[in-house]
């Protein structure tokens, strides 16, 4: 059981990273970025193939994260920024298109096979009867550190505070001299980088292939929902929640249908926390 919990927290941390990506972008731009999962996939695939073609490990992961961050920036620059005024459904469809494009490109650049990466440390730690791969601890640790850095970024740096301002009230932020376009671009870059980090961390544990993106995106979105799509801490907690649901249901109910169970839990949470319940009053155009 302990084994399942730790594994769940590890996997869940990754979902939390993806969920953070959703929250960060959504807070400043109201966009739900369906290609968030592909960022994870891309960095994992890229790192795996760079390492296996001889690159040193550090360079490979750095290059992968940078590359994916650029892809995130490209999403904003090429697509979102040009259609910022459209309805959110249109923007979501645009991110969906981008997701399919990324997946199609990955299929062409790489192949349909599973890929893996060497873990940071490859020990099997033992606590009594429980054996935990050290990578799990690395994942949880790195994610917590990343979250801490993110919190510092938001609270203490000018850019971070600017992002909070845009998230809170875009027009007021504009009036105060905040460069909203740049803030949104940075949000995309940060989100992509977080997901890319997730890709690097998870690939040693579960194999990665060109089509893991959508599945990850849905679970990351589920994590973000727990925080109401607005709270970063909520996204991380949500990630842990769904990670635990996945591993525990795999262990105790069925490992075949674990993803289905996660989805069912996701649907239930969607219904218990529909958009209206988080705000005291419903604000919107009629």
């Amino acid at each position, binding site marked *: 059981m302990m084994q399942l919990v730790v594994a769940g927290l590890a996997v869940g941390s990754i979902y939390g990273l993806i969920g953070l990506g959703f929250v960060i972008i959504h807070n400043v731009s109201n966009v739900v970025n369906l290609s968030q999962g592909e960022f994870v996939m891309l960095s994992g695939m890229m790192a795996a193939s760079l390492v296996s073609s001889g690159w040193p490990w550090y360079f490979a992961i750095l290059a992968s994260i940078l590359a994916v961050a650029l892809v995130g920036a490209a999403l904003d620059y090429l*697509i979102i920024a040009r259609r910022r005024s459209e309805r959110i459904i249109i923007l979501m469809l645009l991110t969906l298109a981008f997701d399919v494009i990324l997946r199609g490109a990955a299929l062409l650049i790489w192949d349909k096979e599973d890929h893996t990466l060497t873990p940071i440390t490859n020990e099997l730690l033992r606590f009594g009867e429980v054996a935990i791969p050290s990578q799990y601890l690395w994942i949880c640790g790195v994610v917590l550190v990343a979250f801490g850095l993110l919190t510092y970024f938001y609270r203490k740096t000018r850019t971070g505070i600017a992002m909070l301002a845009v998230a809170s009230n875009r027009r007021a932020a504009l009036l105060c001299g905040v460069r909203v376009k740049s803030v949104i671009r940075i949000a995309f870059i940060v989100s992509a980088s977080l997901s890319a980090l997730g890709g690097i961390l998870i690939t040693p544990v579960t194999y990665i292939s060109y089509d893991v993106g959508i599945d990850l995106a*849905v679970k990351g979105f589920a994590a973000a929902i727990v925080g109401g799509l607005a709270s970063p801490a909520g996204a991380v907690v949500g990630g842990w929640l769904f990670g635990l649901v996945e591993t525990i249901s795999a262990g105790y109910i069925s490992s075949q249908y674990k*993803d289905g169970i996660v989805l069912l839990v996701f649907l239930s949470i*969607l219904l218990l926390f529909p958009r209206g319940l988080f705000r005291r009053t419903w604000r919107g155009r009629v």
Partner: protein
Amino acid sequence: MRSVKTRKIVFSACALLYIFTTAKYGNALYFNIANLIGIYGIASIGLVLLTGYAGQISLGHAGFFGIGAYGVAILPQYINSSPLLSVLLAMIIAIILSILVGRTILGLQGHFLAMATLAFGSIVHIVFSRNISIFGGPDGVLVPELLFLNFGPKEQVHWYLLIVLIFAIGYWFAKNLINSRYGRAWLSIRESEVTSQVSGVNVGQLKLLAFMLSAVYGSIAGSIYAFYAGFITPEEASLMHSFEFLIIVLVGGARSLIGTVVGAALIVVLPHLLNEAVDYEMLLTGLILLFIVMFLPRGVIPTVRRKILRIE
């Protein structure tokens, strides 16, 4: 064109002429493509009603398609139902599911609804692909023949005429719905749910109706596909398949029934055009979706209508 009525008569006449000519002279490749276009078109009509008219986005439409397909493949094994009965039963299952799922998720707005339908489609796909004992797992299942009193479509031409007929019936039914108070109610829901509710439209019921209809069209199309192809895999209910239906609707025009043919043509013909470069299919599909949403958000048919109407 002189009037709407003249235009309709001319259009129908042309369509009939086209159908009969191609039925007589079409070759195997033509029938293969045309039949698939018809099947996808039938499924997409349901999505047009749901997304184009009622304004509810569904990223899980292939789930119903898969239910229709697997229904006719599996039910005869377990309850010894005839092919036609299986089609009906699969449709009923799809309807029941659409009611259960719809009542729960149709209250959600915007991207939440989209994700919920995505989850629904994923769950269906998971059930079909992970379960080997009943559904045959990722390798798929064989489908029994379509027979009614020992008669059934044997040649491509038979399928062609059958599919055209069912498409025509589906088209006619949808067109009538669109021009009725249901269609108008859907449009008002699409514009503003609150206003419709205040004006007396039963928003919940009508959204559910649209969802149910999308399930019906999807399921029937899936059943036809299963009989036609003779073999189905869980990919019939996959996410990519759902995206393809959405692309069909967006390409053709979200509120255009004829557009489903245009969109389906694009989706069906694309892999054939690519031939050996079939690996490029996903990338191209994404690029097409991007292009349409960025530059032709209304779709092909409405844009064409505007140009032609403007010239006249």
